[in-house]
């Protein structure tokens, strides 16, 4: 995974002209990303797909913080996505919270869960770390399955549909797909800015240092364990926000959201777009969902097509779509 990354050091080492281009792109990455997100509902086949790209893109951005930048391959991020979604739905439906408080509640729940899982999981490395995160996420899945009175169990969480939302005196029709998209996009944009700030901070440099060489980072005096837990928690927090937006969007929380397939899909999207690049996860989510949407209209064997494309990417373009584009542009 280190190969798919263009680190600060790499950029600094480049020739002056290239460096200028890369730096400008890096400085404007949040506004540029938001601009692209603004256009999505008008260029994709359906608004429902655009909202999904937004949500899963944000989910992959959160995951990328851990996987792409800190170099830890988690197979359990569905748990934080799901915790955010369930807590938001329960907040609205059972506690009667206003919608924005419910989003906060969802993030709090997902972040707290990520903190606990992170504390337990960072005691291991490599494949063991992946397995521990997977096992803990399965624990969350079965808890949600059994706690039928709270989560709705197998049938999923229902009964918290928002027809209108109120914001500073405005009342917005939340069933209108375009309005809903832009409301959710505001949250995604804030999260993107937040992630960008983290990556630009000294802490961002530390987690990249841990990814590149953990022993050396420790020798330099950084508290590796604390940074890892911090990165894990922040990553879980962003994923929980994606979950909260998912709950508001569909007005249901299906049990499958906590499943092993969701965790796998997050990894796939991140790899497809380009792990360790800022905008790559969005590109990955877009590519994955667009393929699924278009190919499944055409044949029930859509999984074969999507799977083949994924294998080809892993074999021949390990930097992913966006990562390869960046590398190609920089290499010219």
């Amino acid at each position, binding site marked *: 995974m280190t190969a798919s990354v263009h680190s600060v050091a790499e950029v600094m080492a480049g020739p002056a002209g290239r460096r200028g281009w890369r730096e400008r792109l890096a400085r404007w990455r949040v506004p540029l990303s938001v601009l692209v997100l603004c256009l999505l509902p008008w260029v994709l086949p359906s608004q429902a797909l655009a909202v999904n790209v937004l949500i899963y893109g944000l989910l992959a951005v959160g995951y990328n913080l851990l996987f792409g930048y800190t170099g830890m391959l988690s197979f359990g991020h569905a748990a934080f996505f799901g915790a955010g979604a369930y807590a938001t739905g329960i907040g609205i439906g059972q506690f009667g919270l206003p919608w924005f408080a419910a989003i906060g509640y969802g993030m709090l729940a997902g972040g707290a869960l990520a903190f606990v899982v992170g504390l337990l999981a960072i005691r291991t490395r490599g494949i063991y770390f992946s397995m521990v995160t997977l096992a803990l996420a399965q624990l969350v899945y079965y808890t949600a399955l059994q706690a039928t009175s709270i989560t709705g169990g197998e049938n*999923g969480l229902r009964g918290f*549909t928002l027809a209108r939302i109120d914001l500073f005196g405005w009342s917005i029709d939340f069933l209108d797909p375009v309005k809903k998209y832009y409301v959710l996009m505001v949250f995604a944009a804030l999260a993107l800015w937040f992630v960008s700030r983290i990556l630009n901070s000294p802490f961002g440099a530390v987690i990249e240092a841990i990814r590149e060489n953990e022993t050396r980072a420790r020798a330099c005096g950084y508290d590796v364990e604390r940074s890892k837990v911090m990165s894990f928690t922040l990553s879980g927090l962003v994923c929980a926000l994606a979950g909260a937006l998912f709950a508001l969007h569909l007005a*249901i929380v299906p049990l499958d959201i906590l499943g092993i397939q969701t965790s796998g899909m997050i990894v796939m999207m991140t790899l497809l777009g380009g792990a360790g690049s800022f905008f790559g996860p969005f590109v990955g989510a877009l590519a994955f969902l667009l393929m699924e949407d278009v190919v499944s*209209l*055409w044949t*029930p064997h859509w999984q074969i097509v999507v799977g083949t494309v994924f294998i080809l990417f892993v074999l021949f373009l390990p930097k992913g779509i966006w990562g390869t584009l960046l590398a190609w542009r920089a290499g010219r």
Partner: protein
Amino acid sequence: MTSKGLPSFPMTRRHALAGLAAGTATLAMPGLLRAQGETIRIGFPTPLTGPYAAEAKDQVRSAELAVKLVNDKGGIGGRKVELFVRDDKMNAGEAATRTLELIEKEKVHAVVGSLSSAVQLAINEVTRARGVIFVSISQSDTINEVKDFSRVTFHEALNPHMTTAAVARHTFKPGMRIAYLAADYAFGHEILRGFKRAQAAIGAESVGEILHPIGAPDYSTFMPRLRAMKPDILCICNFGRDQANSIKQAVDFGLNKQAKIVVPVLLYTQRLGIGGEAYEGVIGGANYYWKLQDTLASARAFNEAYRAAYKGAYPTDYGAYGFTGVSSLLLAMEKAGGTDTDKVVAALEALTYDVAKGPQHYRKCDHQSVQSVLVLESKAKADTPDEADPFRILAVEPASEDILRSCTELGFPS
């Protein structure tokens, strides 16, 4: 998950349209939307991929047939009907997304479909918030209850309560010992609850219940425990491939000699899939069996139309839901003179229809289709000269509210 090429339903055309729309903004094409205003559009989400793909494909074929029969007669008030089939992948989130797309992009007038308890509740949540009629064709007790009900929610499929009530009525006797093996998920629990309720009412005795995980390939650890319970009847409360696998292993352990095996839904596709020996003597319920044609003119007409359209194949039980569900909706639209939601809802509530299995109507309080329930027995191999006719109809429980839970019990004000 064997899936041969489907007979030409208009997916290729839809694909072409999707491709056209992919590059361009849909909203920038008002001409296209106006042209669509002429046709009546019905969304049909169903799991074309996943463990119930075979049943889903039968649903699509039957639903296509219902649409074709109406279009052949000139449509509804001169308007053609078009079916928009979507793969919900047996995933509630995916189903909700597809339903949103059907409503927002294709502007469908109604949605029919689903083949899972969780999926239909997800679709229902999307449609009821937007006031779009949804006719569910998958079994569920929950959708009848007041919490998930809405003015636009209709349930064409049988529900676990009525299925088990009918099956138990014809198999359980007072004093019998009943053991249960149930799949550990919503459908399995609802079936188990239904059977136990019927068993208590009849005066039979429960000697134990075992839950198994959904999709379990191996049941051998459960079988000795079930044998030790010494049951007169073994109730296997699961669905699809789980049913075939568990019955097969129960027979391997000789449980069929010790007890009668009873299942809630005797699946035609599964019975043909694993052959007659394992299923011999197994009793179960069904919404439809093609042999009804011996006594019912509507069943004969449905079978003939289906066989003409699909190379002599017989319609299956779950497939028939696609036909009865879409047909009831189209009949109501015809009565309502169009697609106005309030008028179609009123027409559906007032409708009595007999399109395949005798008279049916939607109960006023919960919109559950009151309909006959078949109790079938799987024949021995020697008695099955015709491969396509593996079942014997033991009884037809007539359409009646007696086997439904009362409106007050479901939480509706009396």
